[in-house]
């Protein structure tokens, strides 16, 4: 395996049983790889299957066929066929994900939400909180919010919590689903810098960015997902 | 005596006695274990000692000497009635003197005088199941006994300490027998618990309504349950018996008038009389001969 993330001939369809079993083909023959220290951006019009690809890579969506190989503990793991326990282990140690929306857990403070992935990997709680504080400060989240659960935060504030949570670990592969969608220019710039730092550290990044400015600032390669789209096959 | 209207010796028919004796033998073989038996209707209400009476009837022989006490006293209604019952149906000799008795049927006390080899103490038991307080299901309590799951007994003692600051259970204080079965010693004061331990006498427990017999053979290890930091202790009394001056015995409170006057006297009437006969006197006591006059 030459790259931390390699995708080969992946196909995905949905069968909608509640709509008379209609079958929606989403993508087919998806093949690409993400080298270490590079940021690959998924491009193409909306609805073409970009988010579905990220969700397959993270394990939220199943895969009809093909392979999703990730370098985990020095050996390739095929996430398309891995059992749940392996997927969880890969998520904990190797594969990070910054989604568009924060899944809010009641009563957990923003600081602890951010620190959690580090704690899950065995870092002491104080240390993890220090790192979390540094990141939140960098993303200009007012310190008065740190101790509060993010449920009542604005979209932009929640997104920054989410970004900090995704960037706090040194996962070797990071998936980014529109991380800058609801950020202002200043914070977008912070995220761009953070992505550059990840690249410099050798992280393989795969992202969706609708914001062209950010995309141009971070992308090493833009992959047109239209080439994999299977939508026209349906009907 | 002949004809239909006669009783068998000691009231119960021989088959019933054999059934009860088998239960007693099993109880002796498994100290502290509650043996079910086919309790009979007796010519007295439940709660008046039907269990004890059946056990006594089953072990009583023509040469036995019977003593019956109720709360330590030979002269209360229950004691008098049961004594009279056995005089009538078995024509055995009766006594109030502990040392002369071969069988002592008791409700709620163990005599102060040390029991000796050859004597049998028969307890009347209202509720034989020590776990009943917290576990109402019979199926479950049996299983708990079978598997020696006795954590619940300590829950009960824990509650006592939590509520009162000390173990406030003063009677029917649970004991563990030979390190195996937890047993309810019947509603005797915990003061008497140490007397059960390594007693030379055979101790039999009969519960008529609940249909259970259990036993402590002579020289059985009987340990009162407790916590390391709240060890088992017996009651102590501030003053000696007002009549005979005895110390280290269990005292009853006797109200003397309606102005708050009271005194504390031996609950074991035989013991008290015996001491007074020997010339011991408490601060409100009168020598026995004068009292009789």
């Amino acid at each position, binding site marked *: 395996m030459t790259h931390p993330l390699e995708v080969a001939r992946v196909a995905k369809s949905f069968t909608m*049983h*509640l709509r008379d079993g209609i079958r929606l083909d989403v993508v087919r023959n998806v093949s690409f790889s993400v080298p270490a220290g590079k940021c690959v951006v998924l491009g193409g019009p909306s609805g073409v299957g970009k988010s579905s690809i990220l969700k397959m890579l993270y394990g939220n969506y199943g895969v009809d066929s093909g392979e999703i190989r990730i370098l985990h503990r020095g050996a390739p793991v095929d996430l398309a066929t891995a059992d*749940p326990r392996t997927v969880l282990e890969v998520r904990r140690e190797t594969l990070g994900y910054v989604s568009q929306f924060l899944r809010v857990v009641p009563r957990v403070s923003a600081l602890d939400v951010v620190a959690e992935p580090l704690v*899950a990997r065995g870092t002491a709680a104080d240390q993890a909180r220090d790192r979390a504080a540094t990141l939140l400060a960098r993303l200009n989240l007012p310190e008065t919010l740190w101790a509060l659960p993010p449920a009542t935060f604005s979209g932009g504030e929640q997104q920054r919590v989410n970004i900090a949570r995704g960037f706090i670990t040194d996962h070797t592969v990071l998936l980014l689903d529109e991380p800058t969608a609801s950020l202002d220019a200043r914070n977008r710039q912070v995220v761009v810098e953070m992505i550059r730092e990840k690249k410099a550290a050798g992280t393989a990044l795969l992202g969706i960015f609708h914001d062209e400015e950010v995309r141009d600032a971070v992308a090493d390669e833009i992959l047109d997902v239209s080439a994999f789209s299977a939508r026209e096959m349906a009907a | 005596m002949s004809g239909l209207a006669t009783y068998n010796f000691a009231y119960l028919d021989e088959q019933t006695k054999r059934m009860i004796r088998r239960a007693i033998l099993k109880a002796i073989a498994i100290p502290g274990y509650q043996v079910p038996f086919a309790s009979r209707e007796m010519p007295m209400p439940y709660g008046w000692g039907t269990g004890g009476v059946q056990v006594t009837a089953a072990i009583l022989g023509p040469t036995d000497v019977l003593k019956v006490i109720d709360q330590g006293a030979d002269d209360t209604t229950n004691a008098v009635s049961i004594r009279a019952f056995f005089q009538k149906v078995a024509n055995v000799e009766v006594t109030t003197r502990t040392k002369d008795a071969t069988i002592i049927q008791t409700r709620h006390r163990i005599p102060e005088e040390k029991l000796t080899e050859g004597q049998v103490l028969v307890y009347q038991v209202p509720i034989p199941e020590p776990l009943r307080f917290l576990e109402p299901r019979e199926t479950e309590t049996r299983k708990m006994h079978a598997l020696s799951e006795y954590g619940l007994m300590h*829950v009960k003692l824990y*509650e006592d300490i939590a509520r009162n600051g000390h173990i406030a259970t003063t009677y029917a204080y649970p004991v563990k027998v030979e390190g195996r079965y937890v047993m309810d010693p019947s509603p005797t004061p915990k003061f008497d618990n140490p007397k059960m331990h390594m007693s030379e006498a055979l101790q039999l427990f009969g519960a008529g309504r609940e249909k259970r017999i259990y036993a402590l053979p002579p020289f059985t290890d009987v340990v009162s349950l407790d916590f390391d*930091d709240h060890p088992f202790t017996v009651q102590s009394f501030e003053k000696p018996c007002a009549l005979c001056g005895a110390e280290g015995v269990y005292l009853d409170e006797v109200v003397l008038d309606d102005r708050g006057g009271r005194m504390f006297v031996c609950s074991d009437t035989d013991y008290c009389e015996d001491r007074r006969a020997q010339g011991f006197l408490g601060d409100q006591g009168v020598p026995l001969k004068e009292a009789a006059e």
Partner: protein
Amino acid sequence: MTIEPLLKVNGLTKMYGARIGCADVSFDLWPGEVLAIVGESGSGKTTLLSCLSTRLEATSGSVEYHMRDGAYGELSRLTEAERRFLMRTDWGFVHQNPADGLRMTVSAGANVGERLMAIGHRHYGEIREAASDWLSRVEISPSRIDDQPRAFSGGMRQRLQIARNLITGPRLVFMDEPTGGLDVSVQARLLDLVRGLVHDLGLSAIVVTHDLAVARLLSHRMMVMKDGHVIEQGLTDRVLDDPREPYTQLLVSSILQV
């Protein structure tokens, strides 16, 4: 040391006469893993939980448990004494109705301390201290230690039940609709508490629930049951985000928001 499953379930089947309770259920549960069993009332999830926890005897199949000594014990072959010992030391069982899992007429402290007394603790002060500590951990003020659960709210009772189960440091906890009878706000607090405890203590848990939000929040993996059969299982995220079976799609589409 290689990690081995805590529980190995193979072909577990329970028949009620000719009617299926649960049929041919197989899975491994790993240390630290939380498994949710979801499905409608009557789908067999509670029957399955009862069979797993030896509260009900299975008709066929096996459940092997990784004992503390390292060996696997087939649960149906353990003696009753061994099973009951396991249930009050190494396992916990959280009932939907706290009254089924608590002694309502003894104090909170005794409820929590009972398992310690059952395994031979005989120091009142230490038992009380441990109980007090656990009350704090489930967010019940230690000042309530001498109150009976009768005086507690539903949420407090449920938290008390959890403390009562966890005091002996069990490795496996069974939960039957743990948030079933609670208000939504109380549910959230309980879920958060359970989630934290499971994580901190490295517990394995099997949680039966009909509430997919509960499953999403608590579990790593889930099994969907219908008519006694497991029709779909996998990573919780995947089952909820990409349900395959018609019934699972119906379940997921029926919830207001996960």
